[in-house]
């Protein structure tokens, strides 16, 4: 079976407003795509529709993962098929221990993949290398999920989840926002390492070119008013930086 995320002519609306107006995209494991576009172009909507947020409704087109239509599936079912997304502003869950949450999610995925459950000790062991990679302390796992996390910690926590859940395709929404240069370097290095190790197809959703200096994309797509208006290679991103989006937006 082909492991591929295939989006065809996707139209979607949120709160009565049509935002996506025909998206076509194919992403394979191991590839790195960047989706760039100005504010309000539909970048975050695309992420939410793909992950199955109940507020967003697809009205036309299809999304398939490994040949399976996922439009009717719940977010947890999509996750177990290998779709993952990081959020620009991950929501706080007070009182929920980050480590407990992570181990629970990991074991649900392991079960779906017929892999053995991790006991707390094994879990700590398998998490350790990623904590080191992301320059996070062990103690980080005993905090409440996303609560009082700094901007950088929030993004790192998202990447840590990606590392453990080993998805087929991961959509990373503005993963560089709120990061200082050191944090950005650590995050970018981790993304590349994890993507390579687990052969993950990465979609970087970003407003700015900056992130792409640290992670070189194989493909760059420009989104505007709910449509992909141009696709190209890395040089497209550099052109955008120089000339701005305006030259591509009619």
């Amino acid at each position, binding site marked *: 079976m082909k492991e591929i995320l295939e989006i065809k002519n996707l139209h979607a609306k949120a709160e009565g407003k049509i935002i996506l107006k025909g998206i076509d995209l194919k992403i394979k494991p191991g590839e790195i795509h960047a989706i760039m576009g100005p504010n309000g172009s539909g970048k975050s909507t695309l992420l939410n529709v793909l*992950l*199955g*947020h*109940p*507020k967003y409704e697809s009205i036309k087109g299809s999304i398939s993962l490994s040949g399976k239509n996922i439009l009717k599936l*719940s*977010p*947890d079912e*999509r*996750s*177990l098929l290998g779709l*993952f*997304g990081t*959020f620009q502003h*991950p*929501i706080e*869950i*007070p*009182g*929920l221990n980050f480590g407990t*949450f992570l181990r*629970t*999610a990991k074991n*649900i*995925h392991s079960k*779906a993949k017929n892999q053995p459950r991790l006991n707390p000790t094994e879990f700590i062991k398998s998490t350790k290398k990623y904590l080191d990679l992301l320059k996070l302390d062990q103690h980080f796992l005993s905090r*409440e*999920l996303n609560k009082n996390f700094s901007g950088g910690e929030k993004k790192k926590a998202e990447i840590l*989840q990606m590392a453990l*859940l080993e998805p087929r395709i991961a959509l990373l929404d503005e993963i560089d926002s709120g990061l200082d240069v050191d944090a950005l370097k650590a995050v970018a290095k981790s993304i590349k390492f994890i993507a390579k190790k687990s052969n993950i197809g990465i979609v970087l959703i970003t407003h700015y070119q900056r992130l792409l200096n640290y992670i070189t994309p194989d493909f760059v797509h420009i989104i505007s008013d709910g449509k992909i208006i141009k696709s190209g290679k890395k040089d497209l991103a550099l052109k955008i930086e120089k000339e701005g989006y305006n030259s591509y937006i009619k």
Partner: protein
Amino acid sequence: MAVPKNTKRLISNTFQNYKFGFKTTVKNVFSEPKGVLTPSIVTSISKRKNEPKWMLDFRLKALEIFNKKPLPTWGGDLTKIDFKNLHYYIKAQSKTQTSWNNVNPQIKEAFETLGIPEAEKKFLRGVSAQFESEVVYESVQEVLSKKGVIFMSTDEALKQHPQLLKEYFGKIIPVNDNKFAALNSAVWSGGTFIYIPKGVHVDLPLQAYFRMNAKNMGQFERTLIIADENSSVHYIEGCTAPSYSSNSLHSAVVEIIAKKGSKVTYTTLQDWAHNIYNLVTKRSFVYENAQMVWVDCNMGSKLTMKYPAIFLLGEHARGEIHSLAFAGKNQHQDSGGKIIHGAKNTSSIITSKSISKNGGRATYRGLLQVNKGASGVKSKVSCDALILDNISRSDTYPTMKIEEDDLELAHEATVSKIGEDQLFYLTSRGISETEASSMIVNGFAEPVTKHLPMEYAVELNRLLEMEMTGSVG
């Protein structure tokens, strides 16, 4: 609480709804007939217990007060309690046993199903088990008895330590305090008496287990805890009962004295069947440098009205009330706490968390009082309500009486629903919606459950999960 795995399975297979609802068939030794509570019933209870005259007089006076006082019109609906249709006293076993082997086999089985002997072996220093009106089993580890710790039924304490009872019994909660304290004072039976000598620290909890088995039962235990100077103790009570279509009444009185430098933690895991009125008066006097902590978890009952109180009477005394209430279908949890700052530089914390679901109603009712002259008080009150659907209800009635300017006071209250974005976040990680809801609810309850010993926190989280997955109610 603390139920072994195989029994848990057995119970959940047998009872779809309330998991502690099994009934025990037992031939009672004696039962007061159902009917209007009369002086002759009160006298009969006292005579059976061979009580001193002062206690009989106390009971009869309490009965008069009970009859005179009107039913409270605030809080929950009390008009459906049928006082004429209750057994005020039932004795199911001839005497208290100190060895499990000697406990009536049927009663023993009930407590074994509830996991009591197992918990005793694993993480307790003493256990008391009350079935209907009397304590049927009690045991305290020798290491404690040697240090002078007293842990026995209040009936037994009246025989063995009459001077302590005379000094403290009914002194923290006077007989005329409220209608249900008066009722308890008239017909009290069982409950726990604890005395911790000066400087003695009880490292593991002492637990009492209360079981009501009969239909139309009234259980009126009476608990008195005295922590002498610089001592410490953690007492845990658990309550369950079979489910019946007619109502029962549980009305306890709990009095606590925390002397200079002592620490008393009192934890309640209330999971009564949903036909039980749970109307309880709990109060503690806390002296210089002493600390009182109430951890009050109310999962069961039809209506609970309970507001554990702390009187901070000595300088630098500290008080904490952490309460958790779950109100499901046909349940009203009217709970909270009262803290009275009566001395300088005293501090207090009230944390209240309520969850309502399936039309349940959760009410927070709290009092924070700072008396004139009690300067340097610090207090933090937070009450949060989580409402899980559109048919459930939450109310908050915080009262503050502040007669002193020199104080630090923080108060916050929130009402929330489970956020769609929180659910989406967790489900997008592969967690089912049901499990994600449980995780959010458990997280919400965590500021209270973190005060429970680990074994009980695990059990309570599991109970919350059961409530959430809909296998209950």
